C-alpha cells in the first residue's frame, strides 16, 4: 500500500526546469526524506504534492487521489508544515488551532478533545491562551506540528521542519515526529538539507538539480561509498593523492579546508600503509600533519552521486539570515 506514488513528475518555471522527471513511491507509515541543496526542487515537489502548484506533466497520487484532479480529497488527507512561519501572530495558540479545525470541518467536541491532546503532546498546554507573537521559534514550530495533525491527516508533509532552530529544539521535534509515527502510523514526507536530519528517515531520495540521483535507506546509501573515510592534512595533497592512487587504487578527492579525503575499506588497516607510502624514502617526503578516520556520511554519498559538495557558502549564508529573521520575529 503506497501513500504517495509519483510518476515522471515535471515542473517548469518559464525556461527553468525545477523538477525534472521525478518518480518515487512512499509506503504507508514510512518517513520519507527529500535531501538536497537549496534550489534542488524540493519545495517545488512538495508544493505539487500538496496541490499548491500544478505539475507541468507527469502524475502524482497522494493517499490514492490525483493531485491534479481530486484536489479537495488530497487536501483533506494531508497535513502540511511549511518552511516559513504560517501562524497568525495576533491570535492565541488555541485560536490558531481553532481556525484550522473550522477549515477542516471539525465539530466543537471533536476539536476540544483533539486540541487538548495535541497541545499536551507538544507541551504547549500552559501557553495556549497566549498570542503567538510571544512564542519562541521552537514553540511556534511545535504549534504548527500540532495544527498539522489536528484533522487526523493520513500523510504529513514537512518542508524543512527544523530550519533555523537550535540543535536542542531540533532534537526535540524529531522525538515528536518519531513517536507520532509509532503511535499513529502517520506517513511523513519531508524535505531537508540537514544531513544529520535525513538520517532519521526510513528512506531518502537525494535530489540535485531537479532530478533524483539516489534513493534508498540511509544505510544502503552510505554503503555505496564503501568502507571508511580517511581525512588527512598533508603539505602536498595533489602529490599525495596521486601516489596513493598509483599504489593502492583508492578513490581520493580534495575536500573543504584543503583536506585529502580517501575512501577505502578497512580504514584502520589502511592508515599505516598510507603512512609508509607517503613517507617513502625513495621519493620526496610528504609530511602528514594529521589523520582522521570516520564512517561515511550522507554528505559523502551526495558528493559521490553528484560530483559536488552539497552546501555551498551561499546556501549557508542564506540559512543564517533566515534563522536570524526567525529569531527576530520570534521576539
Amino acid at each position, binding site marked *: 500500500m503506497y501513500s504517495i506514488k509519483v510518476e515522471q513528475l515535471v515542473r517548469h518555471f518559464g525556461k527553468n526546469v525545477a523538477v525534472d522527471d521525478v518518480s518515487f513511491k512512499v509506503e504507508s507509515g514510512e518517513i520519507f526524506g527529500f535531501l538536497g541543496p537549496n534550489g534542488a526542487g524540493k519545495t517545488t515537489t512538495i508544493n505539487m504534492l500538496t*496541490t499548491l*502548484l*500544478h505539475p507541468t506533466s507527469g502524475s502524482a497520487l497522494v493517499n490514492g487521489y490525483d493531485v491534479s484532479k481530486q484536489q479537495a480529497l488530497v487536501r483533506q488527507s494531508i497535513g502540511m508544515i511549511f518552511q516559513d512561519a*504560517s*501562524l*497568525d501572530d495576533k491570535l492565541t495558540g488555541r485560536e490558531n488551532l481553532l481556525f484550522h479545525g473550522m*477549515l477542516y*470541518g471539525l465539530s466543537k467536541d471533536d476539536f476540544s478533545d483533539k486540541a487538548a491532546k495535541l497541545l499536551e503532546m507538544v507541551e504547549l498546554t500552559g501557553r495556549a491562551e497566549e498570542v503567538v507573537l510571544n512564542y519562541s521559534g521552537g514553540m511556534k514550530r511545535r504549534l504548527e506540528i500540532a*495544527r498539522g495533525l489536528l484533522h487526523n491527516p493520513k500523510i504529513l508533509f514537512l518542508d524543512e521542519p527544523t530550519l533555523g532552530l537550535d540543535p536542542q529544539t531540533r532534537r526535540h521535534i524529531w522525538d515528536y515526529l518519531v513517536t507520532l509515527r509509532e503511535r499513529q502510523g502517520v506517513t511523513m514526507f519531508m524535505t531537508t538539507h540537514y544531513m544529520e536530519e535525513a538520517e532519521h528517515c526510513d528512506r531518502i531520495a537525494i535530489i540535485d538539480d531537479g532530478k533524483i540521483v539516489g534513493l534508498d535507506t540511509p544505510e544502503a546509501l552510505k554503503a555505496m561509498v564503501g568502507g571508511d573515510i580517511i581525512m588527512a592534512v598533508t603539505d602536498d595533497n595533489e602529490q599525495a593523492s596521486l601516489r596513493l592512487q598509483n599504489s593502492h587504487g583508492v578513490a581520493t578527492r580534495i575536500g573543504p579546508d584543503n583536506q585529502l579525503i580517501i575512501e577505502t575499506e578497512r580504514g584502520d588497516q589502511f592508515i599505516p600503509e598510507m603512512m609508509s607510502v607517503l613517507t617513502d624514502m625513495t621519493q620526496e617526503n610528504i609530511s602528514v600533519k594529521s589523520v582522521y578516520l570516520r564512517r561515511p556520511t550522507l554528505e559523502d554519498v551526495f558528493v559521490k552521486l553528484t560530483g559536488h559538495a552539497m552546501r555551498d557558502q551561499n546556501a549557508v549564508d542564506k540559512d543564517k539570515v533566515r534563522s536570524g529573521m526567525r529569531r527576530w520575529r520570534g521576539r
Partner: protein
Amino acid sequence: MEILKRNVRGAYTIWYRDIVRFKRDRVRMFSSLGMPIVYLFVFGSGLSPAMAEMGGGNIDFKQFMFPGVLTMTVLFTSVFSAVSIVWDREFGFLKEVMVAPVSRVAIALGKVAGGSTVSLFQGLIVLLLAPVLGVTLSISQIVSLIGLMVMLAVMMTALGILIAARQKSMEGFHMMMNFVLLPMFFLSGAFFPLRGVPIWMYLLSKLDPVTYGVDPLRQVSLQALVPPDLMHTISLNPLTYNVMMMASFSVLFLVPAVWLFSRQE
C-alpha cells in the same frame, strides 16, 4: 451539498478571523481616527474661510468634507485589508488556508466579507465625529449610510484583491497606491466639489468608481443641512444611479479578482 457547506464554513472562518483580529486591535481601532481628525480640523478649518459659499451657504467646508473623510476611511481600510490577503498568502497564515479543503473562491469571498466588515466598523467610528462638526444624523440616515458604506467597502475590497492578486511583493503595491488609489480618491470629489472643474478632470471623475461612493454619502449625510432644492449644488447624480454604478463596479472588480486569486499556478 457537503461541498457547499464546507465552503460556506471556510468563508466564514476567514471572515471570523478578520473580526477577531480587529477586536483585539484596540489601538488600530482608534488610531484610525487620527487621519480623519487631521483632515477635518486642520485641512478643513484652513480651507473653510476660502470656501464659504457651499450648499447655498448652509454648510461650511468641514461639513462638506465629512462624507469625503468617511469615504477615505472606508476606501483605504478596504484596500489595505484586501492587499493583506495576498501578503498573507505568500508569507503567513493564508498559506495554511490554501492547502485546506476549501475552494479559493470561498477564501476570496470570505476575505471580501471580512475586509468590508472591518472597514464598515472603521467608518462607524468616524461617524462619531458627526456631532462635533454639527452634522446631525437621524436613525434612518445612519441606516442608509451603513448600506452605502458596505457597498463602497465591497467594491474597494474587490479592487484591492484585483490589484494584488498576482503580486508577490509589496513594492508593486506602493506603485499602485500612488498611481491608482490616490488619484482615484482625489478625483472622486471627496475634498472639493466637481462643479466647474476642467473637462479632463470631469471626465476622469466619471470613470472613477469612488465618485459614486462619495456622492451618495454626501447627499445622505448632509440631508438635514442642505435644502433639497440646493442639494444639486454639492452633488452629482441621483442616489439610485450612484447605487447602480457601485453595484456594477463591484461585479466588474469581483469577478476577475476572484478568478485571479483562485487560479492555481
